[in-house]
């Protein structure tokens, strides 16, 4: 699963970790993940899915009920948070309000003991890294949300951890700043070369930043894949629906022959989809809205269904068109507004919704 060109062992190895809280709440069920050195790894899922619990297990604030966590080849079961080679950026940032910016960044260096002469230089270097040079003497109360977060980043990075853990680091920022910080985090990660593990409920954040994403739902690990793989080839209905938008159809499997799977889709009839291996049991079919096109006549080289336009939502770069067939099947089609003229023309009445059979996903879970 881990693609490390140098064949090194994974920096993080989570082996069959489960976590139950008192009161019988199962937060995590048998999670196994390996993270390669230098990877930007995202834990993605809806709120309450257990992703933060998993991050806290890596930091040492929670202990797994079952399973082991190895970081840098060492079993972390009996290692306290203050002795782990990881540092964390908290969702609330937790920048100490009674210390200056520089004191905050120096805190982790001072508790280590040993030679203190190099500390001011390292603090200044860390502040430069997060573009806060010259802010050392300020109090955290004088900083904006984005600046406070940079302090939290500098404070964690100055310790040169093997792994940096980030708990929903961007959720408290406004939309524009969040986008800028996404790029900033990727730049930082490339500069320092430290493995980043980020927890987020925002799929766009995960897709645009991470090398690989683990999707967690109700404590179960559903899929670990690159952003492209996750978006284009989700393996379960939950992942397909959670990441981006998706048209989902349920159907009866009519069998697989000669690389073609035939499915009797409720309300749409028989669909022939190219498939690689034999699939048994009922399946779900899924098509992304942007893979669908609208025609005023029936195209003959693709799957096509006649439908009535119900609603149109113009969203600037694209227009979302909601359609339904007489049999109560709904489509959502995303039309890219490649020109001003295209944006002004909106579909109406009866049209054909069509897509390539190869763009149809087969979902078994």
């Amino acid at each position, binding site marked *: 699963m881990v693609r490390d060109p140098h064949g090194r062992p994974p920096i993080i190895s989570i082996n069959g970790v489960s976590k139950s809280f008192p009161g019988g709440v199962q937060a995590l069920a048998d999670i196994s993940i390996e993270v390669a050195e230098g990877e930007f790894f995202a834990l993605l899922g809806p709120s309450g899915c257990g992703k933060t619990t998993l991050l806290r297990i890596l930091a040492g604030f929670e202990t797994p009920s079952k399973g082991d966590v190895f970081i840098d080849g060492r079993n972390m079961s009996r290692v306290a948070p*203050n002795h782990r080679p990881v540092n*964390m950026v908290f969702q*609330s940032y937790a920048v*100490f*309000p009674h210390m200056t910016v520089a004191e905050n960044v120096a805190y982790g260096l001072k*508790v280590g003991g040993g030679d203190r002469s190099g500390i001011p230089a390292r603090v200044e270097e860390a502040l430069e890294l997060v573009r806060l040079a010259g802010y050392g003497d300020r109090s955290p109360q004088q900083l904006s949300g984005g600046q406070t977060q940079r302090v939290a980043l500098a404070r964690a990075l100055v310790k040169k951890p093997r792994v940096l853990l980030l708990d929903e680091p961007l959720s408290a920022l406004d939309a524009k700043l969040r986008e800028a910080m996404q790029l900033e985090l990727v730049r930082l990660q490339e500069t320092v070369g430290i493995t980043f593990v980020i927890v987020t409920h925002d799929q766009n954040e995960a897709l645009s930043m991470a090398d690989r994403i683990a999707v967690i739902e109700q404590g179960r690990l559903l899929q670990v894949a690159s952003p492209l793989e996750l978006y284009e080839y989700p393996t379960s209905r939950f992942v397909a629906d959670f990441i981006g938008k998706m048209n989902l159809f349920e159907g009866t499997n009519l069998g697989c022959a000669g690389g073609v799977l035939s499915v009797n889709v409720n309300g749409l009839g028989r669909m022939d989809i190219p498939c690689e291996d034999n699939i048994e049991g009922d399946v779900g079919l899924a098509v992304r809205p942007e893979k669908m096109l609208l025609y005023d006549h029936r195209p003959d080289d693709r799957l096509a269904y006649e439908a009535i336009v119900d609603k149109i939502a113009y969203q600037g770069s694209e227009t979302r068109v909601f359609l339904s067939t007489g049999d109560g099947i709904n489509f959502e089609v995303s039309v890219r507004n490649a020109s001003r003229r295209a944006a002004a023309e909106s579909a109406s009445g009866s049209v054909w919704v069509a897509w390539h059979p190869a763009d149809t996903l087969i979902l078994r879970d």
Partner: protein
Amino acid sequence: MESWRRNPLTFWVFALPPSLWLAVFFLAPLALVWMMSFGEKVGLIDIVISWRPDNYLRAMDPLYLQIFLKSFWFAGLTTAVCLVMGFLVAVAITFAPPRRRPLLLLLVMLPFWTNLLIRTYALIAVFRTKGLVNFGLEQMWEWSQSVLQGVGLGDLGLLGPEFEPLQLLYNNFAVVAGLVYVHLPFMVLPLYAALDRMDRSFIEASLDLGAGHIRTFFSVVIPLAMPGIVSGIIITFVPALGSFLTPDLLGGTDSQMIANVIERQFKSANDWPFGAALSFILMYVTFIAIALRSLWAGRARRGSAA
């Protein structure tokens, strides 16, 4: 608050009754006592307000200064013991399971439900020569003696010829112990409020950055709990300084506090003007302490905003 200004009628309807109450039952008697402190006794019951500072000058007598100092020492020691014990209790409640916390807080406040006089007499029952503490110690003495007897060392008299009860009552120890007992809840509650408000991720961040628990306690928990610590110190120190009942019942002849002297002036000595002057000196000192604290807090705020 803006809306109060736009609607003065509503404001006065709500503000007038309590203002009148305070004026009649708080400010007026206080003013009377203040005037009295500048008066002198004429005959047995008559007091003439002469507006001379004689009573204040008399209070500067070493005899009274010593009692003031002793009161500060007792109140300060009480506050220090309460701070250490109260912090431990407050930390324990803060980190107790959420369902247990209301019960634990109730236990802290439970003594308030009983009259102070009765609680103080109960302390006498604990501390007296044949009280609970000495009874327990005597049992332990006899038990140890019988163990020594059993191993053949009983005749050496290692523990003394017989059990000697500890003198726990009618001395300075009894006064400070009683004051700590009475004032501990005043310390626990503001400390608990401060710790409960504190974001746990500050503690986690400190651990995450490599600090141990002790370092985290002194570098992060205590500084962040400072507002609660200062409030706790003030609302423990001020009433402890003016304590009357505890030194009266538990103290010996040399454990008088200033409130006992004041009480004597108003009752047995029948010197109200001098008693009034002593009361006001106590009040001025308290005011100065609180003023210094706000000054310090204001500077700290400006310092962090600068």
